[in-house]
């Protein structure tokens, strides 16, 4: 039997949701029939709007899709203006203040505290510069990710940006692909470093070379069925198909159609294509694709570049582990990657980013899957002046490794799924570690990813230290806790972290990392990386290296932050919530 969500989708879904959304916005929050909240909030996701969690009713997270993470000149300024004017809530965040922009692990943008009534104006402003929230959430093609410096990387195999853009153009708003069984995450990469992270996407196009009719043709190998969520992480499987850049849109659409027709619509837990791949295996998958969805004979896979992959790998093989720093482009200009701690940037800083990108570069800004931003097209003679800008003091191209390595999801601040507070906590962790812990000599990359739950939006399984939200009791009282995993990473032979320590109270995690690093330094052989060290150490021994303990670190959010209406409010109890509010932010509770 189809789920409620499938039934709602069969009634109204895709582009047509917009008219309803704008009508509700025009008439105000109360115009959404109370007995239709669930169905409309499910549908609004397709237009990038996610109803915030319990206690924050009537406020939405808005996700803006930026294909391949590219913000063209002028777009960053509009994002900052929209955040400034519309993304301000009823309470401040103690670290980030009131009004901020989140750069996400899928190279998108998230704003919070968006009111329904403001959506038409926001859409107008975004669309005036070519930005859109279409399909940023919901069961369809999500924001397409890829190497954020595609076309500006001196060493790339093929410039995949035109392919990513063509896929975006073809499959955003495409009625044949707008109602899939579940979300559809696509990665297109042409670089040698693997920074599209194809292994953890539903559909991955990865750089390859194939000899066809005696010619060496550059294009992509295809993998299908990767993903990290729900305690069921999968690496995308090689389906033995090579496509040229010209064939990529057709074959990608064919695979999306295969998913549309064969994915499980009766059980949303089993709906992602990774489960279909579990059932079929790559050989059957390829056969069905060839026989039922593609009109020409598919090429077998070409020679790939996976042995060169370095991004998020935990190995020191000479390639980039991220995009932070100053790097020359093929045209002689430079791109400057800035570290944004946990991906969150205040509105004033975002305005500054737009100004600086315009003054020193082309005005373009690109977003990476490590929640950082890149200013592109900076002439060499402007680099010194750019480096002296105040903005780069806070968002450094040469940050401390603990700052550089931090990634965190949204957490209980706004998200229904999360079990613990995340972004502010990871900021506190990174600052404490920077002040108190020495990294072993020569260790410049050390990735700590904090995810609030098993949905894994912070991609915890592919970090050196993986942190995942949990609960425990301490002195008999329930407290927020984290599972600790070690040794995850991508690269030629990707591996998910082993969860070696469970339910560590959050105030003991910095001490655990401090002790872990001290133990690593003691037992390290030569200049091996942390991942290499973990790989040669058995799991039981690893667990012994994690020695949680209280330190000078103090955590102000030990309690159940999910039970607050907003964890940082002076009065954080659910009863103190002003939500729902009207278009002016006035509480509607008296009318309820």
């Amino acid at each position: 039997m189809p789920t409620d969500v499938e039934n709602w989708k069969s009634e109204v879904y895709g582009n047509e949701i917009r008219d309803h959304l704008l009508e509700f916005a025009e008439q105000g929050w109360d115009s959404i029939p109370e007995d239709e909240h669930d169905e409309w909030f499910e549908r609004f996701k397709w237009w990038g709007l996610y109803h915030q969690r319990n206690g924050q009713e009537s406020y939405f997270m808005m996700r803006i899709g930026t294909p391949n993470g590219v913000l063209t000149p002028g777009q960053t300024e509009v994002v900052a203006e929209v955040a400034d004017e519309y993304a301000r809530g009823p309470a401040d965040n103690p670290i980030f203040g009131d009004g901020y922009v989140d750069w996400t692990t899928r190279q998108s943008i998230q704003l919070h505290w968006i009111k329904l009534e403001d959506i038409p104006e926001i859409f107008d402003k975004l669309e005036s510069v070519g930005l859109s929230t279409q399909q940023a959430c919901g069961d369809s093609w999500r924001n397409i990710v890829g190497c954020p410096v595609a076309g500006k990387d001196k060493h790339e195999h093929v410039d995949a940006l035109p392919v990513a853009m063509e896929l975006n153009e073809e499959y955003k708003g495409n009625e044949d692909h707008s109602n899939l069984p579940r979300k559809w995450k696509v990665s297109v990469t042409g670089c040698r470093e693997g920074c599209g992270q194809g292994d953890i996407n539903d559909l991955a196009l990865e750089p390859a070379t194939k000899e066809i009719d005696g010619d060496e043709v550059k294009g992509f190998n295809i993998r299908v069925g990767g993903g990290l969520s729900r305690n069921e992480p999968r690496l995308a499987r090689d389906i033995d198909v090579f496509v040229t850049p010209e064939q990529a849109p057709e074959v990608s659409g064919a695979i999306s159609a295969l998913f549309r027709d064969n994915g499980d619509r009766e059980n949303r837990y089993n709906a992602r294509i990774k489960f279909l791949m579990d059932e079929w295996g790559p050989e059957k998958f390829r056969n069905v694709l060839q026989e039922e969805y593609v009109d020409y004979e598919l090429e077998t896979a070409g020679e790939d570049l996976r042995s060169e992959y370095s991004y998020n790998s935990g190995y020191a093989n000479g390639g980039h582990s991220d995009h932070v720093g100053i790097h020359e482009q093929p045209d002689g200009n430079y791109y400057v990657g800035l570290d944004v701690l946990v991906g969150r940037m205040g509105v004033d800083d975002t305005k500054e980013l737009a100004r600086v990108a315009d003054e020193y570069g082309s005005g373009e800004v690109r977003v990476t899957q490590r929640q950082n931003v890149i200013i592109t097209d900076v002439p060499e003679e402007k680099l010194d002046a750019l480096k002296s800008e105040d903005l780069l003091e806070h968002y450094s191209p040469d940050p401390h490794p603990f700052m550089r390595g931090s990634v965190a999801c949204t957490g209980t601040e706004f998200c229904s799924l999360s079990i613990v507070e995340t972004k502010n906590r990871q900021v506190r962790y990174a600052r404490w570690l920077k002040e108190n812990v020495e990294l072993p000599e020569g260790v410049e990359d050390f990735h700590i990813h904090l995810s609030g739950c098993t949905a894994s939006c912070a991609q915890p399984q592919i970090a050196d230290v993986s942190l995942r939200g949990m609960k425990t009791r301490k002195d008999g009282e329930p407290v927020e806790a984290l599972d600790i995993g070690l040794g995850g990473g991508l690269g030629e032979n990707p591996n998910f972290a082993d969860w070696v320590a469970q339910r560590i109270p959050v105030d003991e995690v910095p001490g655990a990392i401090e002790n872990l690093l001290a133990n690593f330094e003691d037992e390290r052989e030569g200049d091996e990386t942390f991942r290499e060290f973990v790989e040669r150490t058995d799991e039981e021994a690893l667990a012994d290296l994690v020695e949680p303990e209280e330190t000078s670190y103090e955590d102000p959010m030990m309690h159940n932050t999910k039970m607050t209406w907003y964890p940082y409010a002076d009065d954080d109890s659910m009863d103190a919530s002003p939500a729902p509010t009207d278009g002016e932010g006035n509480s509607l509770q008296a009318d309820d």
Partner: protein
Amino acid sequence: MAVALRILDDGAWISVNDHREVSVSELWRFVDPTFCACTLPDMVVENFIEVGVDGRTVEVRVYGQCIACGEKSTTEWLPVGRIVDGEFRDIDRESVLAPTGVTEHQE
């Protein structure tokens, strides 16, 4: 009176008549020797699997982990609230939850 019961957002919460009523991250205690070896499992709720109603009692099956022993499993039906005059009323989920059996499957 018909009551709409749903699990939404990847099993993150239970909706009763289009209101969010029960969410992941709570700690529940209940007696169930099949869940883990603990006399009284102390479980963090990670995902709602099924929701149903037994008379006026709203019950769920959830995936979770006992924070005392670490066992991860799915529970039998556990009560989380009652429907009174068409409205959901929380039961005290910080006390020991007592399974009542039954349950008409709704999701």
